[in-house]
């Protein structure tokens, strides 16, 4: 009796040690995340509470509430993120729906048109839009020759240009999970709805659409969160007129070397992002957005 007991605990201990060792295999990766990400961001968090005179102060946060220019930056950030997300849903959902109806060979071909931009450098795509939308660019030239407008209009270096570029960059993030969710829908359910007398429209809105929402929500959430922290596209296509939080962080460091102000903005951005993801994770399966991509 006593011997078997001993063996059992011994085995259990061995197993625990084995599991601990296996867990330890993750340590190089975890150390990297700790040293390059967690500790520096922790330090930024600390710095955000240090005032100009070097003592503890909330002035970096108070500035955000008091100054109109900071409030405006947060407003712009949310405005751009919401508009981009809405446009991505309106454009991306029908395209995902279209692809989900195709035979798989054809669908895979169409999927390339989504994956190619997805993996092309975001800088290259932003540059392409800058070229296309400039005053004597392709879009203006064609619109004029087609008679849509008479004189070259300003499409870039403003909010419109930023939105065009951002929607283009974010669309794959919405389409891939939405398409994934649609492919998983059992087609017989639609047939059953039709069989029971639902009109095509009704079958779509009461059966197909609700079943596709997990993918759509995961995609839209991903787009929104990525937009909140976006830098490159608004910096290039916004022409200084669209100032988002991330751009203010960069200019606080590059131009004013004000680590306190930059850190406080960074902390707010991080907390907002984490809060949105946390709240959303109770309703949406986030693994769809991170692991559900088609690559």
């Amino acid at each position, binding site marked *: 009796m006593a011997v078997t007991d001993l063996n059992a605990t011994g085995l259990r201990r061995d197993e625990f040690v084995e599991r*601990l060792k*296996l*867990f330890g*295999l*993750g340590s190089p*990766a*975890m150390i*990297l*995340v700790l*040293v*390059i*990400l967690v*500790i*520096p*961001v922790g*330090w*930024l968090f600390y710095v955000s509470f240090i005032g100009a005179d070097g003592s503890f102060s909330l002035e970096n946060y108070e500035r955000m509430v008091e100054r109109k220019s900071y409030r405006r930056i947060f407003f712009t950030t949310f405005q751009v993120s919401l508009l981009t997300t809405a446009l991505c849903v309106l*454009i991306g959902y*029908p*395209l995902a729906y*279209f692809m989900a*109806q195709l035979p798989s060979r054809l669908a895979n071909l*169409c999927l390339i*048109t989504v*994956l*190619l*931009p997805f993996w092309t*450098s975001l800088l*290259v795509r932003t*540059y*392409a839009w800058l*070229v*296309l939308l*400039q005053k004597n*660019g*392709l879009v203006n030239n064609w619109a004029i020759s087609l008679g849509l407008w008479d004189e070259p209009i300003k499409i870039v270096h403003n909010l419109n240009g930023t939105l065009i570029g951002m929607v283009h960059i974010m*669309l794959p993030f919405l389409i891939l999970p939405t398409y994934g969710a649609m492919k998983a829908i059992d087609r017989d359910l*639609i047939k059953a*709805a039709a069989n029971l007398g639902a009109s*095509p429209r009704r*079958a*779509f809105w009461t059966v197909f659409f609700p079943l596709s929402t997990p993918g759509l929500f995961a995609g839209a959430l991903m787009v929104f969160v990525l937009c*909140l*922290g976006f*830098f*490159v596209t608004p910096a*290039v296509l916004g022409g200084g007129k669209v100032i988002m939080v*991330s751009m203010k*962080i*960069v200019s606080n*460091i590059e131009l004013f070397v004000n*680590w306190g102000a*930059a850190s406080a903005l*960074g902390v707010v951005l*991080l907390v907002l*992002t*984490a809060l949105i993801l946390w709240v959303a994770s109770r309703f949406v399966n986030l693994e769809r957005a*991170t*692991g559900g991509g088609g*690559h």
Partner: protein
Amino acid sequence: MIGWLRSPASETQVTHGQRLWLYIFAGITMILLVTPTLIVIPMSFSDSQYLEFPPEEWSLRWYRHYFSSDEWMLATRTSFTAAFLTMLVATPIGVLAAYGLHASKLPAVRAAFVMLITPMMVPLVLIAIGAFYAYVKLQILYTMTGLVLAHALLAIPLVVIVTGSALKSYDMNLEMAARSLGAARWKAFLTITLPQIRFAVVTSALLSFLTSFDEVVIAMFISGGDNPTLTRNMFNALRDQIDPTIAAISTIMVIVTTLMMALAQIFGQKKDTR
């Protein structure tokens, strides 16, 4: 054609004709998704200062300018070296982590997984200024080491997710069998498990390469001096003027990406386990 338009397109007997709007809309959207990237290619072969399409005269002058510029060549070397080293660093430690967390069933695994994918969730700008500060302290600012470490950090979530999902569909009993026949754990992993998940590992490696190669925001802060990346120099050039040399560089970047993506697709399509 008319027959096709009237034929049913879905389970609800909606005809192709009634759905024509969807087909047109989808077609236009797909064209808009692809063309902006591809249009840079013909433009880079234009002889003109101004980026026109279609170019009136063709020439290789922007490519000549690019290949004869020491500055751009240095940046190109940096970007390729950093991408290659990032792949070499991120893939093994990411695969090890994915395997370790998969096999160890400790309660802490979930927290460790969340920690490993945080680089994907934290806004890039924040990672960038954090790394910038840390690198000044560690005295590795503007070095290849620093650049590779930061890019490996970004690549790790991808490696862990891609390899982790391959491990989920892999039967760990195969490795158990090898071990019960006397193989050491590491040997069982290398000879049994790794060959079974090799396609996921190759895909992870390619994605790590691309992550580093395309990355802008972090490179803007921590690359420079003797090690400026291509993306960093491109971004700075874009702030000033629209130089057609950028079109030539963009073309090269699009080709590299397409190549990598094609490889990733080929490997990704193959099922790791039968």
